[in-house]
């Protein structure tokens, strides 16, 4: 049983961590938290199932198309729901515009795809074992994203530009960085990461429209606990969340596991609004 809790918990935790990174990548580029993060995860699963199971495309093609789908939705989010409201960031209109977009995609999926969970294809034709691909795929995806982002941010020029924008938007623009293109690139990147999360976790979560609000909430918990924009904090918090949730699931049952997660989330946030690893920003007069 412990083994099952750990493997399921870590796998789910990796998915949450990836969604949290999706939030963070969008946040770094725009100072905006977007309700579409969970929607991207949902889309990864649904598109994967659509391309591979329903349309019969090869796994590799289906995988790439799902990621492209995520990138496209990321860019659409930036153009439709983020850019128009960036001027008045203090009015928090982005909360509403991204919520609206997330709902539109979620409802569209429910009606045009299915209101019931649909199966996600097995990606590798190997026998089910103790440590199955449905567990190690999300972990692999998470590790790949962490390493990939680290290389991107440390080793490449565009990665440095991302960091510059995240650090100080005005200064970066004054230096002549193409802020708008970088923001769109960030949202495309976030789209890829979110879709990857849903695709890698497809077998566990299935291709289901209601995964969108679920991932939006559970993916945000690590962001809040790990400190916004802090990817390392998000990964640690995501894994802990997955383990805690699975343990509670086995010990007290699913419903009370959700209640427990929610209670812990609220209590930690009320005690430390800046997250466990975050820093407080002084308010400005």
């Amino acid at each position: 049983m412990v083994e099952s809790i750990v493997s399921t918990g870590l796998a789910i935790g990796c998915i949450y961590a990836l969604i949290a990174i999706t939030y963070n990548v969008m946040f770094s580029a725009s100072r905006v938290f977007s309700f579409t993060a969970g929607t991207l995860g949902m889309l990864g699963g649904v598109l994967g199932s659509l391309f591979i199971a329903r349309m019969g495309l090869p796994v590799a093609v289906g995988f790439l198309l799902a990621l492209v789908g995520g990138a496209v939705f990321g860019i659409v989010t930036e153009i439709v729901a983020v850019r128009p409201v960036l001027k008045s960031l203090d009015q928090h209109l982005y909360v509403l515009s991204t919520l609206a977009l997330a709902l539109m995609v979620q409802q569209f999926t429910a009606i045009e795809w299915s209101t019931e969970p649909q199966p996600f294809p097995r990606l590798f034709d190997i026998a089910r074992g103790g440590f199955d691909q449905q567990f190690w795929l999300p972990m692999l995806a998470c590790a790949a994203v962490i390493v990939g982002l680290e290389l991107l941010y440390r080793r490449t020029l565009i990665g440095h530009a991302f960091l510059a924008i995240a650090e100080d938007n005005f200064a970066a623009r004054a230096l002549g960085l193409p802020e708008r293109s970088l923001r769109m690139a960030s949202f495309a990147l976030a789209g890829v990461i979110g879709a990857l999360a849903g695709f890698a976790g497809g077998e566990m979560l299935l291709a289901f429209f209601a995964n969108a609000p679920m991932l939006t909430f559970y993916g945000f918990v690590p962001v809040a606990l790990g400190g916004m924009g802090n990817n390392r904090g998000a990964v640690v918090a995501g894994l802990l969340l997955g383990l805690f949730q699975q343990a509670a699931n086995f010990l007290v049952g699913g419903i009370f596991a959700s209640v427990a997660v929610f209670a812990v989330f609220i209590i930690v946030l009320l005690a430390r609004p800046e997250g466990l690893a975050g820093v407080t920003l002084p308010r400005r007069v």
Partner: protein
Amino acid sequence: MDKQAPQVRPNRPNVLGSASTFSAALPFLALLLVGISFPLFGGGYWGVIATRACVYWVLVSGLNLVVGFGGQIAIGWVALLTLGAYTTSVLVAGNVTPALPPYLALAIAAAVGAVFGLIVGLPALRLRTFYFAITTLGFATIVTQVALAWQSVTGGGVGVAGPVFPEPFSSQWGFYYFCFGLAAICTWMTANIAASRFGRALTAIRDAEVAAEASGISKSALLGTVFLFSGAVAAVAGGLFASLQSYITPDAFTLDLSILFFIAILIGGRGSVLGPLLGTILLTVLPEFAAPLVAWSTFLYAVLLLVIVLAIPGGIAEILDFKNRRPLESDRAIVPRPDLLGPLLGAAPDAGTLTLEQVSLSFGGVQAIDGLDLEIRSGQVHGLIGPNGSGKTTTLNVISGYYAPKRGAIRLNGAPMPGHGLHRRAHMRIARTFQTPRIVGSASVLENVMIGGTIDGEGTFVESLLSLPRHRRDEAMLRDTAMLALAAVGLERLAPVRADRLQHSELRFTEIARALMLRPVFLLLDEPAAGLSAEEIGRLGAFIRAIAQAGTGVLVVEHHPDLIFDICHHVTVLNLGKILAAGTSAEIRAHREVVNAYLGA
């Protein structure tokens, strides 16, 4: 309070008189008539739709205070509808207790809803907007899951029968009138709040939080009260909803419903009661006209939400706001009337001295102010000048309780002031203005100024809810005082105008009027002359002098040396957080170091 009635009444424009109260109430009266006579022309199914609209409005009216007025993005308010529906149904069905009469069950549901409204709402006091939105969303999910799992009480997925209200409310139209009556009462109550100091304080928290706190508004107390109220009416709506459905399962309470409530408010427009009321009716009725689209209704709501946010953030209320489309006079001069300060400020008691002793404050490695001594005497103008970054505004923020000093003390007549707590300063009659005016743009100039007097109202939230005499007395007092303050700064003609239509200089004087509402013993002005014309600066100087003559101690942070030397009794020059020089205007003007470092040759 102990202030005499103002002797000089400025001419009051008639827009606030009874004629306009009537025209504002007209749409509500029309809706009331339509609602009462509805059974005459609508039958059967339309009766259900109309009842549903009433039930939704009971919830939305309360949520409107949270979202529309307070600006708190509470998306998951359906949780309280669920809670109210189950509490009422379970109590009436007698699953846990002996079966209770429906009215008692509804009252208990209201109490439970109030408590949970507070619990769901409290994180708003600590958390950022998006965090709060997510927590309400999480709460909505949890409540439904609990309803599904707690089978012995809620019936789980099978559900539970809704309550049936006894005669005369058991028939379809009887129940309609019951719901309509409650909806009408909710409309009246929330309209009362909207027009009270509590409603204005909520919009101030939404649009100008710092200014709200500086006016003595306690965010936690006010939002807490509003969450209690909003939770209670939402739970009552839940009880009615359960009765209307006659049978409830967790499936009935989808997030879509929450989104409907939320969007009804935004379509209607933030800070309006009529707008969200029309929005609720519209969203309840709309799917009935487009039967094939019912499956798409949530999708369409989402599209609507996006369109509103991007295209018409003001909602229906802004479209209906004809009054504010009339052009304003183009050449308006601000002519303050210092003679009105006497009646406005009353006979100020000698407030004594506000002293800063060796106050230091640093941000990270930056020493913002370092061992600062300052003495502001009542009845005098004290100038604080220095280059950018020398610590002027920080000093002002320390005095107004925005930052607690790391070292040193602030004393009022020798008694130390508590280091922190912005809204407590207002109770000590210390008022301030801001470097960039902090104004509620969608409220009228008069309402903005009235915000400054919030702490002088004596009635409670409940008294305002029910429009009891003390509430009406407060409102009359605040309106008269605010008109007087506006007349004193020379803006009374703009009283009914939306504040975001004003010019920059007018906003500065509006802020001064708002600060004067506190009848301050000490007034802190942060660059009041920035952006003013030379003529306006001259009038401002004379006005500040007059405020001091009326007994108030004034601290002015400024960059205009001429203004400072004209009006200040004492001047302190800061450089890099330390005092470079201090003395009378004449002394400073002749001070060599100051001239070299700051004023230029």
